[in-house]
């Protein structure tokens, strides 16, 4: 009788031990699994932010074949403002009263501004954001505008130093009556059409190996039309950790227009 009772004690003890031991193992496993998961997500986030940052800059090396060492689809573009003011003191001829001008020719020369320019990348916007047709002759760019007497109009010219745009030159006709003010050049960061095209021609597998990147997907999104403009990379898996980050950008489209958009990156 006493011996049987002792066996029951052992069984109860062993049962309690197994339960508590199991709970302890589960707690420890959860603890370390949580740390491991956080670390993985942190690493992915770091990759995604690095890639996002790198993409807006120029690739390394800037001229590459096959695949770059560091991914980049961005670079510098430049802009400056032009003011055309239809007041008497801006007329090239003295003693003239300001009058309505139906087709005033406005022109500028890149060489006079000391800029090294790819003229085909020129795009001109008026105050409402509409593009203005222009004519190119050498490095001389001309466009026309209508001005009422006393009216002033601002134009913004964007250009790039290296691009693969075809010429948008068109004939313009009018008379040059006024002098215009050309303001200093500003440098801006854009995602470039040429770099997007170049990356599009590269093989994704080669790019990931050469750059040491994880699996990724990138997208240039037009926020004006809410449409995807450019994508590169792999499709994100339906399961698992995928980190997605984005930033607002401006990019050049196929006709050198400057577009407001977003750069989205997914990494897994």
């Amino acid at each position, binding site marked *: 009788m006493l011996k049987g*009772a*002792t*066996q*029951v*004690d*052992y069984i*109860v*003890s*062993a049962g*309690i*031990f197994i339960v*508590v*031991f199991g709970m*302890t193992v589960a*707690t*420890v496993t959860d*603890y370390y699994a*949580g*740390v491991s998961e*956080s670390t993985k997500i*942190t690493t992915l*986030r770091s990759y995604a932010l690095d890639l996002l940052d790198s993409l807006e800059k120029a690739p390394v090396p800037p001229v590459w074949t096959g695949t770059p060492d560091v991914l980049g689809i961005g670079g510098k573009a430049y*802009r400056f*403002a032009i*003011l055309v003011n239809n007041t008497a003191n801006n007329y090239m001829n003295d003693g003239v009263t300001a009058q309505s001008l139906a087709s005033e020719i406005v022109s500028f020369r890149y060489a006079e501004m000391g800029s090294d320019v790819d003229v085909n990348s020129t795009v001109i916007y008026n105050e409402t954001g509409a593009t203005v047709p222009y004519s190119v002759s050498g490095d001389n760019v001309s466009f026309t505008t209508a001005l009422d007497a006393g009216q002033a109009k*601002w134009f*913004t010219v964007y250009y790039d130093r290296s691009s693969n745009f075809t010429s948008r030159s068109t004939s313009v006709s009018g008379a040059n009556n006024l002098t215009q*003010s050309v*303001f*200093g050049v500003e440098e*801006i*960061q*854009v995602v470039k059409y040429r770099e997007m095209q170049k990356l599009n021609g590269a093989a994704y597998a080669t790019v990931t190996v050469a750059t040491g990147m994880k699996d990724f997907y990138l997208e240039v999104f037009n*926020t004006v039309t809410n449409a995807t403009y450019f994508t590169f990379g792999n499709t994100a898996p339906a399961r698992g950790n995928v980190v997605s980050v984005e*930033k*607002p*950008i*401006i990019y050049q489209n196929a006709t050198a227009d*400057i577009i*407001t958009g977003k750069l989205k990156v997914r990494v897994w």
Partner: protein
Amino acid sequence: MRGFIYTLEVLIAISLIAVSSSLLFSRVPEKPDFVPALLKERAFEVLDNLYNSGVLGLYAANNSEPSLEQSLLSLLPPNYLFETEICAESCDTLNVPGNRSVVSADYYIGSYRGSYVGKRVKIWAWTE
């Protein structure tokens, strides 16, 4: 009697294991909080984007805070709340909550279309 002592020993051992493990692993490791860093980066990025788009200089030159805030609304995620100020040396912190974790970013505009502006565009941002 002997069995009782064994049971007692096991219970003591179990208690020691349970107390030790609960002391060691009771504190769940804190996950890194990326929100303030991301918020600050995003706040600066949107100002930089507005500058690259050519409108930030115009807003600063015209002291046009409503236009600036309207542009920011379309660029920032809906759960990001913000307050902006176009100022020079000292900026008014009115409307910036005192009971939240708030980050700020500054963007300086020197000139716009050939005219001196000398303004600081400041954004305070926080999440809901």
